[in-house]
């Protein structure tokens, strides 16, 4: 038994209740963050946190902390017990997960786990050196995170996951390009290649033109469609949002609303992503079809939302980390199926006349029920003319109904890319979206920002 699992067992033992659930998150990570081609904010984090949920009758209380000696655990348990005692009965309170058969997944790479500050600084240096004369901004990070879940109902398991990300903005005063790579094994990350890709894009973005607002055909590269899909998914594919009638799916399940080329799943078992075996309540992960050939199929659930839904709805294994539990079940392993296009160039040719978007910035959910989002493009926006990439464009303000973007899809690339979606707030929880590049018949530009560059 490792330290995290042993700690979770001790936490359950420290609490008194009809049922107890403990989640331990242990993290060791390093961020070599750079700006202007200099490492300027290097951060090393080591932490262990314990979350306890105590159920007494139909009452539940939660507490979390990072003092893990006996006195600390007992104090933590006492606070959870006090919270349970202070709460009124909840008739839909779910029983914590019991023992179950867990899927075996990849996602733990010893080489990645062994990376130390010297390695992280070296890999950041590789990115800096590869960009040549264009200053670069970004980071190399790697981490090892262990999640252990133990319940008094018989579930006891832990999973150690590794992750690594190289992310680079290459930029001058008037030009900028962006690239990133994320994987659970550092051998699949090449910071120099990331920086070279970003610099290559940047070199094509000087002297950007403006574009009249309006509706355009467009190609969204993987970083752009990954972020757009993730923001759309937070409300759309959450079982809680469906119950609360703030999801685009409300009243539409089983209906075809997207192009038949569009199939979306949440699949934490896919070794091409950042695999997970079970969720933060101890429920096994499973592949959940969300959209199949354009037909809206379903959402993701945790124990609490499934209990409220009734009708034999079961958790799909999508309980969020304790710090995010308030927001209900969330899809953190989105996967948009690839298409038949052999290259992005082929998508550009399909679009013919339109725009190409490398990356999005600061998305906002304007109207969740209709799936309307706004945001900006940045670091590589181009005009498409005569089926080819043409002149660079200034940053564009867009306001789109994502269902409209997905309703007319001329094509998707066969190849998919794992786009990093984590900003690494709170305890480390790396996640990403596995996506191809996508062509759409409709992308609404509603304003103009500044030119590329910093």
């Amino acid at each position, binding site marked *: 038994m490792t330290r995290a699992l042993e700690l979770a067992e001790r936490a359950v033992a420290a609490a008194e209740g009809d049922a107890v659930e403990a989640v331990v998150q242990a993290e060791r990570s390093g*961020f070599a963050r750079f700006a202007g081609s200099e490492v300027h904010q290097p951060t090393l984090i*080591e932490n262990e946190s314990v979350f306890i949920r105590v159920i007494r009758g139909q009452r539940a209380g939660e507490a979390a902390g990072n003092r893990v000696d006996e006195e600390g655990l007992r104090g*933590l348990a006492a606070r959870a017990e006090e919270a349970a005692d202070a709460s009124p009965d909840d008739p839909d309170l779910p029983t914590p997960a019991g023992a179950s058969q867990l899927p075996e997944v990849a996602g733990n790479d010893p080489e990645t786990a062994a990376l130390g500050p010297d390695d*992280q600084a070296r890999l950041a240096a590789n990115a800096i050196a590869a960009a040549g004369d264009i200053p670069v*901004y970004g980071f190399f990070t790697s981490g090892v995170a262990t999640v252990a879940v133990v319940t008094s109902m018989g579930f006891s398991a832990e999973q150690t996951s590794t992750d690594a990300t190289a992310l680079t903005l290459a930029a001058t005063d008037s030009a900028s390009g962006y690239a990133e790579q994320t994987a659970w094994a550092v051998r699949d990350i090449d910071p120099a290649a990331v920086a070279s890709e970003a610099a290559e894009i940047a070199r094509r973005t000087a002297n950007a033109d403006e574009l009249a607002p309006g509706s355009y055909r467009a190609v969204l590269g993987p970083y752009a469609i990954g972020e757009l899909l993730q923001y759309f998914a937070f409300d759309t594919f959450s079982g809680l949002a469906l119950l609360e*009638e*703030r999801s685009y799916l409300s009243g539409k399940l089983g209906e075809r609303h997207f192009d038949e080329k569009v199939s979306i799943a949440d699949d934490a078992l896919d070794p091409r992503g950042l695999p997970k075996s079970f969720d933060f309540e101890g429920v096994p992960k499973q592949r959940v079809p969300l959209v199949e050939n354009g037909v809206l199929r379903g959402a993701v659930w945790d124990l609490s939302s499934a209990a409220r839904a009734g009708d034999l709805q079961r958790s799909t294994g999508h309980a969020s980390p304790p710090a995010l539990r308030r927001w209900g079940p969330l899809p953190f392993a989105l996967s948009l199926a690839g298409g038949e296009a052999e290259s992005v160039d082929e998508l550009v040719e399909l679009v013919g006349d339109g725009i190409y978007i490398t990356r999005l910035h600061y998305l906002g959910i304007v109207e969740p029920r209709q799936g309307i989002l706004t945001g900006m493009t940045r670091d590589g926006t181009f005009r498409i003319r005569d089926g080819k990439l043409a002149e660079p464009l200034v940053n564009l303000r867009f306001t789109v109904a994502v269902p409209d973007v997905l309703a007319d899809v001329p094509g998707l690339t066969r190849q998919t890319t794992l786009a990093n979606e984590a900003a690494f*707030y709170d305890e480390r929880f790396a996640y990403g979206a596995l996506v191809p590049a996508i062509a759409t018949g409709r992308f609404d530009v509603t304003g103009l920002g500044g030119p590329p560059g910093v």
Partner: protein
Amino acid sequence: MRALCEEAVAAALAAGASYADARAIVRRSQLISTKNRRVDQVDDLESEGIGVRVLVDGAWGFACDRRLDQAGSRAAADRATTFAKAAPGAHDRALAPVEPVEGEYRTPREQDPIDVPLGDKIALCFAAEEAMQNGDIKVTTAFVRAMRERKVLVSSEGSAIEQDFVECGGGIDAMASDGEISQLRSYPSAHEGSSAGAGWEYVLGLGLEREAPRVAEQAAALLRAPVCPPATTTAVIDAEQMVLQVHESTGHPTELDRIYGTEAAYAGTSFIGPGDLGSLRYGSEWMNITADPTTPRGVGTFGYDDEGVPAERTPIVEAGILRGFLTSRETAAKIGSGRGGSMRADGWSRMPLVRMTNLHLEPGEGTLEDLLADVDDGIYFETNKSWSIDDKRLNFQFGTQVAWEIKQGKLGRLLRDATYTGVTPVFWGSLDAVAGPESWVLYGLTNCGKGQPGQHAHVSHGAAPARFRNVQVGVAPS
């Protein structure tokens, strides 16, 4: 805690650091929320640890450890020094001088919010929820939060500072749905309510139960309201939405680290250059913005920032001209002006960054009714719903939960899904009135994100309703 910080600083110096500071923090926070008259969350979090920041040959290093003991402080110091030494290339970094200080600060409070029994907090939420029930309301939510934090900072330059903070806040949401559309209404703010650096008396003063019926009625009424039409018109914006307008379009762009590019890959940069200080016309003569970490009840209020710089009020924009930046000791030294004072870290496990403290739109004169009276045709916007701004903080688009037509100086029809958009200096240049001190409200936000790894900051903003001419409203997919 002070002894552990001193030990960490000594260990870092012994390992080769030319400068070191250590922050030890013990934080306890609670979040209690109820939804549809059931307890949704009763969460009680306690976190403690030490963060050590060092300079070695001009390169920064930062490391942290959850153990508040001798082993933890030494380990953090050693790892921070190792990481700084590993930074590739040559580094040249200076810090603006600050007088070493032995100081203390304590948030004024009548009742420590953590000490209020959980049962009382749940009862308060239930009472507010009960008052929101009506036929069109699908989801009601009420929530309160409380925080207590003890922080000790020791630097190798001789500063030793102990600060004792409390915060608390709360809010309510009502979501109406008719099966086709859904509409949300919140009070006092859409961003997890509003918080203050104060005791529990602040939460009681919010009057959540008192405001609940109005919030629910407006959410229901929005189901039957028309969508805000597209137009270029006069916009009158309430204090709550002005808070976010100030935050996004004047707070972040005046952070000097962004201006120097250190956030370029994530949060972005700024349309402002270091040389714009004192000359850039940011907005009209009615625009006065002040950074003030001494504001009573601010969640960005402190005695000293996380570099030990004493809190002081700083003009950022005066009569529309850029007069100041939010700075650290490093960026102040780089620009050759000021001494820092805006460095803040999200707990013990993150490196301090330049952050907003409390940033205010100073009041003008008159009332909201006075602002409306001078509008023949326009839109009145209230309570933020959506927000987005570009990486240079120029092009923004905001949506509000509710809006009303303004006709001949009076509020007319209720409107839903209202948005407005603009370009920062053009928009602020169209400001022609800010309501007076009686209409000025202080809001505390707890969700300002920045940095990699990500950090949340708690910042307060005061604002009064304001009026802007020639604003593009009603943005929607074509």
